[in-house]
């Protein structure tokens, strides 16, 4: 029985299993060595930091809400300089809306018609 295990097809099977066990981590690791995943993650981190830096420069930043911005970014002494083209802070309020009363719109156009 022992002799049969040491030779013939069973030995081949054992060797194959051993080869798979040894080769699998090498193949798996070599795949993890190179690639663009790390570069993408780095780019995402940089974009996030840059955006947050831009947002922090907006005056009257709400404590809670949304901020939309468009800016030109240039560098001076290695630091980003923001020249804002547009900034928008859409206001959102949690408030009851009544349908049984009139709503006044306070805009220049409406004022002109008065």
């Amino acid at each position: 029985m022992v002799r049969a295990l040491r030779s013939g097809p069973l030995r081949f099977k054992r060797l194959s299993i051993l080869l798979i066990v040894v080769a699998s981590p090498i193949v798996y690791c070599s795949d993890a060595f190179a690639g663009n995943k790390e570069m993408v993650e780095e780019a995402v981190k940089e974009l996030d930091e840059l955006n947050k830096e831009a947002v922090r420069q907006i005056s009257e930043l709400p404590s809670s809400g949304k901020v939309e911005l468009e800016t030109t970014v240039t560098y001076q002494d290695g630091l980003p300089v923001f020249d804002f083209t547009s900034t928008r802070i859409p206001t959102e309020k949690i408030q009851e809306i009544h349908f049984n009363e009139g709503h006044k719109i306070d805009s220049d156009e409406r004022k002109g018609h008065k």
Partner: protein
Amino acid sequence: MKRYEIGSNLLLRTFIVLLVTTVLLAQPGLAGNKKIMTTTAAKVMAERALIESVYGLKIRATETVQDMVAANFSGTTETKTSSTMKGVQFDEVIYDETKDVAKVTASVRLDSIKNIDDQTLDLKNKVFRRVAFATSTPSQAGPLKALRAAELDAYKQLVKKVVGFTLESQTTVENYILTSDLVKTKVIATIFLATVNEFGWTETGDAYVKMALSVKEVSEILGQQVIGESEVIEVEGAGAQTDDFTEQRTKKKRT
């Protein structure tokens, strides 16, 4: 009859073995144009590199990321250039027969040139030198593609630093804490007189290109004052051989 069959099989096998051996032995003698094709391609790549360095190139790059999740990142860089250059010399041509990879060092001495922005550059017989690689064997193209990707990344970074770029974003502020919802950057610009100071591959096979632009030199050549004259702007571009980012994204989508 049986003996005749055995004899015939043996003869056929001998013939096949001889034929295969002949074909295998004759191969190096037959493959004549591979080296020429590869070195010619490397020369063209070196010429392109010189044109990009001296005449310049147009770059269009965009980056978008949603909810700061790497899986939602998309970045593209496109370049374009077209010019005629005279007097390019190939200083060194190396061909690696085993890998079928050619390395060409090309240089050009120029007195003046009209750049991509139609500005006349007084180059005062300056010598420009660039190195390029090429292969005609697709299996060997990985490191070369990574190097080109790193080169384009370096150009993009240089343009962003020199010219600037547009940033568009939507951000949520919640209890004074910022969360970037959508961030977009875009740049369309031309760049010229960029030099490659160093390039190579890391142990993992990723390529890097260290590129620089001397703002002082550019202002001297242009005869115009450029902001930050004493500055030499340096960047390092990176490029990968394998797209494990998309692979991971596809795997995640499947599961």
